[in-house]
């Protein structure tokens, strides 16, 4: 290597570290390290007054050191597995409802004249520019017992001779708010995908005699699968870990994984078990990402 080349190389490496170093160190410290700490915490005993028990104790009779106890406890009571399954089902239902509601909208935007598209996308984004909490709170008003929606529903039920129902603090309220909060996450990736479709494909299909339904089901839909998968991931994962919506709009029986974790950390103060639950949630998320990626690639082959 010539001395000139060496001179050029050294500052280049320096630049690389000067640019990537600060964010790297920051995230190592405040994202990776806390994750590692949580994994370790899940193998420890809870402290007497919350927090963690010491690793070494003077009195050998007090709990200390490492253990698999929290994991044994997780599997010993079926209720925890049940809450995980329930969260999984709520996330699945939310994803499917979002997909059904988002698809026509994304399709319409993608097929609108170019000038109008940006405005239509902005109209999808604006409501979710408002605070998450406000969007959840809005449903407290809408589903409240004096609200028009509840009056209407109970009026109809009354005609049918069914006792009035409470819309607020119910699984229904949780689901509708989950869909409401996450809908734009489904619309945007779908639109980005549908926008790229070549309209000639649909003309060709029509020339081959395909009717409107066939053109959608055999051409547009398979080509939009990557958009569907990325949208589904963006909806499914946050819903799986959601605690605020069941906390505000759900009843006592509507607890999901997120609520369980929140309770362990802030109410029961059993940090090791809270950490175990968080790690189980992480594993569930990874499992979902893996399945979605698998489905995405095998389906992609046919598309």
């Amino acid at each position, binding site marked *: 290597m010539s001395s000139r080349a060496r001179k050029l190389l050294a*500052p*280049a490496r320096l630049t*690389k570290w000067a*640019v*990537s170093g*600060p*964010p*790297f160190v*920051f*995230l*190592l410290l*405040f*994202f990776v*390290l806390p994750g590692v*700490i949580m994994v370790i*915490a899940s193998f420890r005993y809870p402290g007497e007054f919350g*927090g*963690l028990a010491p690793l070494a104790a003077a009195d050998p009779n007090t709990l200390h050191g490492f253990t698999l106890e929290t994991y044994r406890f997780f599997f010993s009571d079926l209720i925890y597995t049940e809450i995980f399954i329930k969260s999984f089902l709520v996330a699945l239902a939310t994803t499917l409802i979002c997909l059904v*509601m988002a698809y*026509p909208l994304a*399709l319409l935007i993608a*097929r609108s004249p170019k000038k109008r598209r940006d405005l239509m*996308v*902005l*109209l999808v*984004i*604006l*409501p979710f*520019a*408002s*605070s*998450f*909490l*406000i969007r959840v*709170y809005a449903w*407290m*008003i*809408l589903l409240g017992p*004096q*609200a028009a929606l509840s009056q209407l529903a109970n009026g109809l039920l009354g005609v049918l001779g069914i006792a009035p129902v409470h819309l607020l603090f119910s699984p229904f309220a949780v689901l509708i708010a989950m869909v*409401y909060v996450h*809908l*734009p*996450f489904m619309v*945007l990736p779908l639109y*980005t995908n549908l926008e790229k479709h070549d309209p000639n494909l649909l003309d060709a299909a029509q020339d081959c005699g395909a009717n409107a339904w066939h053109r959608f089901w055999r051409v547009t839909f398979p080509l939009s699968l990557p958009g569907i998968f990325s949208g589904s*991931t963006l909806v499914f*994962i*946050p819903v799986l*870990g*959601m*605690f*605020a919506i069941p906390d*505000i709009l759900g009843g006592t029986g509507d607890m999901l994984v*997120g609520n369980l974790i*929140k309770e362990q*950390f802030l109410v029961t103060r059993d*940090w090791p078990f809270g950490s175990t639950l*968080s790690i189980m949630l992480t594993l569930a*998320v990874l499992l979902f990402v893996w399945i979605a990626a698998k489905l995405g690639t095998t389906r992609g082959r046919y598309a």
Partner: protein
Amino acid sequence: MRRGFWLWAASLGAYTFLYVPLFIVIIYSFNDSRLNAEWVGFTWHWYDVLLHDNDMLAAMGNSLFIALVSSLAATVLGTMAGIAMHRYKMKALTFMVLTPVAMPEILLGVSLLLFFIQVLNLTLGLVSIILAHITFSIGFVAVIVRARLAGIDESIFEAARDLGASPWETFRYVTFPLILPGVVAGGLMAFTLSIDDFVITFFTAGVGVATLPLRVYSMIKIAVTPEVNAVSTLLMLLTLTMIVLASKFSPDVLRGKT
């Protein structure tokens, strides 16, 4: 024709679903009644209550301070991360930048809670909230900056270097002016995210310090009064301005996830 009709009808339904709840909140913030039930008459009363609610004003002050500090730090670190991800394709860094954005918020919240108390022995408060907000904002800034860089012709940087510019001069006079709209958009985005954040703040705030969303949360958990509608309306106005500003600087804001 019929197909177009159904598409329009379904889309109109979706737009209605998106907007009606927010309009209800805004309308009721001017309603002269304690209940969020029927329209009684127009009033500014709830905004007046808000202006004299010292807890709420303190929370507003905290939120603005946290948002300002954390968005500034996240803009600097996120811009660096965006450049590093684009130029050096570092896998580890890309993973560390994008995962906090993609995973359930509660996981970042509880792991930071554990870390702050167990390892740093920090009393939860402004500092812990700011550190947490920087952590989740870096990714959003980085993604916007990277998208901006991807749209720039690489030869422009080579030309600068051939003309004798040092790496710093290349950055200062070529790269930075080109990515500036993305940096500003990312900063505005980080500011908005910080003002809005509830979940991560909930776990890292401790007992002493309340932000606006935490205050709103405790209000709706205890008793819903139309004062919440008033503060919500003001908050909507603020974030709306931020998002529109951000999308003016960089249309990438509309493409990426916010």
